[in-house]
């Protein structure tokens, strides 16, 4: 477990370096903005750097930025002029609600289907349409699905889900959260893969000797098949899909005007707001690594043999 932690730490260090390297290689100098129209001669630029205490060498800049990030100082946004840290915290929480909610939707839909399909064996009559549906859903552009959801909400239920999160004092406030969560959960394309994986794993586990023994002596088959057949594959695929779901969140946040990381990253990419996009990339990578760490922990807790390998 200690090894996993160390690996996650090393990976995040690598992530921070890549993020820094990309922005370091970017053309232009952000400090030119501060020169207010003066010709950016090398001497003037060096003067500004010295006045602001910006390190000259790349490693100096990298370490001062990294130390700042580790102590919670993500720098200042060019657009708002405010420190990035507090805003990052609130948007990443919003994105966390969206992604966790959508994962729940995905699992609530996928698990019953997968269990039903594996319990009935490889019945072509149900598994083929389901597989097809999975393919279609994963090919569906999620923004278009979003428009359909908005259209239905406006014309059938008479509310406008674009003002999301700002209107939670409403009686139907939960709907403003519910619609984007449903759209991401359905449209991220994870459902089909969860169904496919889970069905394969469950069918495999059901054929194992220990399940047959449990069935023969009248013990609960479900209890014996649960860990290997359901818990491990589900956590594995969810952990592997976190980057994908976060990417989908960028689009869904754009469609529904959801004040999350994806929308902020979109804005920052337009403004070339480096501090913001650096912070978001780091936090997104941290989510991914935490998810994978959590998955390994669950695996190790369920099956200590895995942990020793």
């Amino acid at each position, binding site marked *: 477990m200690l090894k996993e932690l160390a690996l996650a730490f090393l990976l995040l260090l690598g992530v921070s370096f890549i993020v820094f390297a990309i922005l370091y290689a970017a053309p232009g100098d952000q400090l030119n903005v501060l020169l207010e129209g003066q010709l950016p001669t090398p001497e003037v630029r060096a003067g500004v750097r010295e006045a602001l205490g910006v390190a000259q060498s790349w490693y100096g800049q990298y370490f001062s930025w990294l130390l700042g990030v580790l102590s919670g100082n993500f720098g200042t946004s060019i657009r708002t002029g405010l420190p990035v840290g507090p805003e990052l915290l609130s948007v990443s929480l919003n994105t966390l609600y969206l992604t966790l909610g959508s994962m729940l939707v995905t699992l609530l839909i996928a698990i019953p289907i997968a269990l039903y399909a594996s319990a009935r064996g490889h019945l072509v009559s149900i598994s083929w349409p389901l597989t097809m549906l999975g393919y279609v859903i994963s*090919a569906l*552009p*999620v923004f*278009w699905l979003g428009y359909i959801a908005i259209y239905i909400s406006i014309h059938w239920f008479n509310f406008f889900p674009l003002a999301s999160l700002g209107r939670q004092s409403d009686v139907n406030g939960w709907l403003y959260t519910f619609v984007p969560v449903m759209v991401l959960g359905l449209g991220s394309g994870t459902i089909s893969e969860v169904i496919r994986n889970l069905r394969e794993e469950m069918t495999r586990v059901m054929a194992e000797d220990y399940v047959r023994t449990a069935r023969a002596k009248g013990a609960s088959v479900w209890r014996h098949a649960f860990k290997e057949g359901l818990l491990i594959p589900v956590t594995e695929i969810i952990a*592997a899909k976190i*980057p994908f779901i976060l990417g989908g969140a960028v689009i869904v946040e754009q469609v529904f005007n959801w004040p999350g990381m994806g929308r902020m990253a979109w804005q920052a990419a337009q403004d070339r707001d*480096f501090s913001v996009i650096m912070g978001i990339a780091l936090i997104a990578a941290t989510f991914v690594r935490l998810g994978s760490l959590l998955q390994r922990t669950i695996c190790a807790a369920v099956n200590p043999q895995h942990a020793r390998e």
Partner: protein
Amino acid sequence: MKKYTQTSGEIGDFSQLPIWQKYALVDLLYVAYGLLIVALVLVSYVLGMFNLLPHDPQQINIELLMASPLSDGYLLGTDFLGRDILSRLIMGIQAYFLPGLLAISISLIVGVVLGVLSGYRGGRIETVIVYFTNLIDSFPRLVLILLVIAAFKPDIYYIMIVMGITGIPTVTTAIANKIRFLAQKSFIEAAIALGLRTRVIIMKHILWYNCRALLIIQATLGMGEAILLETSLSYLGFGVQEPVSSWGNMVQSGANYFLQGNFWPSTAPALAILFTILGFNLLGDGLNNILEDRRGR
């Protein structure tokens, strides 16, 4: 993350059977549909390249705004500016086709090199490569691309280079696993015992004879992902800009009219995205089942 497992079995038992008995019908249907889509995309790409279109995709026709499909002269109708949707869809293929190929080439070439290194050599190099693939997998693809857009410019070729790099881990893992599986077979041992050069073993006996199918499958699935990504980005406003059409910005610009009940201008490109990505994915999975013998006969 798709798992492509290799199952062992006798090869060649059924080779005398005709093709429709040899493989599952479903897989053949998948591949047939996929090939149809690939052919359509190729033909449309060439048509678009030589400007052989039913109408000028930028031609505004104020007489005929948002015409429904099959109305006079416009097979798929017109959008909110009276531009021909079919022509715009065909031109939209220009937005992702070449960039997508670039992304796939990067993923495949680098992925194969790293996969061979980690699967065939193993040891310390493998540890480094596993770290590298984990590192790339730590970034949500779209966030990394937004980062590159912020740093450089929203150029589709920059975006597709990043896309290619983020596709490396999948190919690397698939190739490395395949090589590890092949290494247990006796023909590699025999080749080494015969004194064949490592280069020949890797290039000919491993990659050419045994990884061709896998690479074609990865390329097909990669194209599906490239389309998904290009359309998402042009939807977000990075990439091809109006008035030049791409499927993503067509969906986006039709959005307001969609909410008023004029579904078609936004739905036509969305369906194009759906059917095309579906085609590439089904082709990849169908080929996988057929060529890699995944489905038990």
